[in-house]
């Protein structure tokens, strides 16, 4: 039974917006998790996220963040931080809708008990660009933040003795090996 979902959000074709899927690919290739933890590259699901989170106890998302901080800055957001935003007038009904999805879950009583968004400040969102250097350097700390949250919630995982090939198929730029984490 699935209890925790670690989802990478972002468009892999658009530079730093692809950091979420990148992080989960590296995470999945480097660590082995218990069966109740699902790891998935969600792309840009908009409202389709609503059905992904049904029945979860814990939701951890990784996404690029638009902020004034320098590229690569890591920021953690709780459920309350995300819900503080008022949903925008949905002129284009498929706009990204993390807050809307959580609000819908809240109304339906299906809100996961724990929600963490690991945000990484991006810099370049041009089609076909690789991750900016600063954003690449934040991949390790982002993985640490995810693992720390999992540990706090009581989920178990192990570092693989030999990491798998991460399968970053969308990038022409060579993958430079597993990122060393600080802990």
């Amino acid at each position, binding site marked *: 039974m699935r209890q925790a979902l670690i989802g990478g959000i*972002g*468009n*892999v*074709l*658009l530079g730093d*917006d692809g950091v979420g899927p990148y992080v989960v690919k590296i995470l999945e290739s480097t660590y082995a998790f218990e069966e109740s933890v699902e790891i998935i590259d*969600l*792309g*840009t*699901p*908009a409202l*389709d996220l*609503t*059905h992904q989170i*049904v029945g979860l106890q814990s939701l951890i998302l990784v*996404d*690029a*963040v*638009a*902020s004034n*901080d320098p590229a690569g*800055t*890591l*920021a*953690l*957001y709780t459920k309350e*931080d*995300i819900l*503080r*935003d*008022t*949903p*925008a*007038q*949905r*002129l*284009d*009904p*498929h*706009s*990204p809708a*993390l807050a*809307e999805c959580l*609000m*819908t879950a*809240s*109304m*339906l*009583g299906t809100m996961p008990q724990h929600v963490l*968004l690991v*945000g990484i*400040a*991006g810099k370049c*969102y041009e*089609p*076909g660009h690789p991750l900016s250097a600063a954003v690449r350097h*934040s991949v390790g*700390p982002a993985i640490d*933040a995810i693992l720390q949250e999992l540990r706090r919630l009581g989920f178990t995982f192990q570092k693989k003795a030999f990491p798998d090939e991460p399968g970053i*198929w969308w990038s022409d730029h060579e993958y430079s090996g597993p990122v060393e984490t600080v802990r």
Partner: protein
Amino acid sequence: MAKRITIDPITRIEGHLRIDVEVENNAVSNAWASCTMWRGIEKILRGRDPRDAWLFTQRFCGVCTTVHAMASVRSVEDALKLEIPLNAQYIRNLILIAHALHDHIVHFYQLSALDWVDVLQIPKADAAATSKLAETLSPWTRNSRNELKAAQDRVNAVASSGQLGIFANGYWGHPAMRLSPDVNLLAFSHYVQALEYQRKALQVVGILGSKTPHIQNLTVGGVANAIDLDSTSALGMSQLAMIGTLLQQVVDFVQQVYFVDVCAVAAMYPEWFKIGSGVRNYLAVPDLPLDSRGSSYDLPGGYIRDGDLAGVKTFQTASDPIFRQSVSEDVMHAYYQGEKPLHPWAGETEPAFTGWNGDEKYSWVKAPRFNGEPMQVGPLAQVLIGYAQGHPLTRKYTDMAIEKIAAIGGVRATPAALHSTLGRHAARAIRACMLAELAQKHLQLLTDNIAKGDYTVHNQPVLPSHEVEGVGTHEAPRGTLSHWVVIKDEKIKNYQAVVPSTWNASPRDKNGAHGPYEASLLHTPLARPEEPLEVLRTVHSFDPCMACACHAFDASGRKIGVAKIL
């Protein structure tokens, strides 16, 4: 003096739709539709192996992933003149149908129903009376007093909390909202149920495509599904039975709930059959191929000019020569370089951003044209073209909708009344009913073909060294999608995607002709110009999708921990 209203939800950095309207005497006198972000994704594809293109195009948009994957493999198969085994056609068709059913359900309930349904009237409803009313409309078994009371309690909890949460941005109490509290409750109860049934439709996509979002089972020449009747992990009796069960539940929801609710809304807002028509040129391509060569289809295609149903033209195939020759893209009012309209095979995507200027360039969307004219695409085009051609399945559900609306509201709509905002909603529900029926047909076709002992799913593509061109089409939930590929030396030389929302959200062209969103807004009456609910009703009726671009979470929340990266 006209007053300008801009609706621009400028809270995030993704490409999104912006609408500008000028209002005079409480009606729209001029309109501009624009997309606020650069879409140059196609350039990434140049130089790549055409057999890999679908993996990339599937990422054009996070909501319509499947459709871009399908159009891409079809474009390469068209260029290579490759036949597709029957099993692969049926499996693809089932994925496309299930995705479309999911999409239409979500569009009506989650993305546009609250333009018509006033959530804050629901606390005043009587759940028992609502249940009785529901019995007169539909045999649906989940309209019980208890189920309705539970939905009402959810709204009461949100309304009494003082924070409207998901409902914080509606135009509640607007004079254009006219449903009774009981009807509002009934529709809202189905809004909640819709989340459950759209998920079942996506489960079908997940079983056949092995992952959702982003199906994994496509390949140029067919599909990669392993067929093994006795296996539970491969496609066999057990998976087919599971798909059958899920589809049956979705079919019931579409035919007994979604279709009925749209007819009820139409019956209660009949004036919206006269508002929102706009461009009356319609375009649709045939889809759901029934043989390996793509020479016969379950869904018809063709085009209509200036609302003349009697003069409808027919496309024989999904890459009909007339379609191939007649599409061009104009960039006179789009932020791109270039003067002359270009055919997609010769298409360019070189940016020339100027900032929004309604008289000059104002959108990142190009203006696709068919024989030089703007075309409306989507369920309304699909239904009008099928109806005009006498397509039996289209006629069956269109006539049924007209009867149902008359039975509920005493209003007799005609196919001509479908040129409207409500017409687009009605057509989408009609199309969903057709797809629901076809879902079961194609599952049977697949099961029967496998039972005959045919396990073939793939034909090997051979890439020629000389230059070839192909077009892959799909009649997607939002309308005609076409991917155009030029292949040379086994690599992609050029690639263009002309997507449904590009047709509909198109800016003006070199002749000044409005795109469908723009034209549909002209003359729309506004009860309160400062709360332009009526503009949203019409724009939403197209089911716009601009999210094919970039997005990132907006960092306006409080940071609880910031790690500086050294």
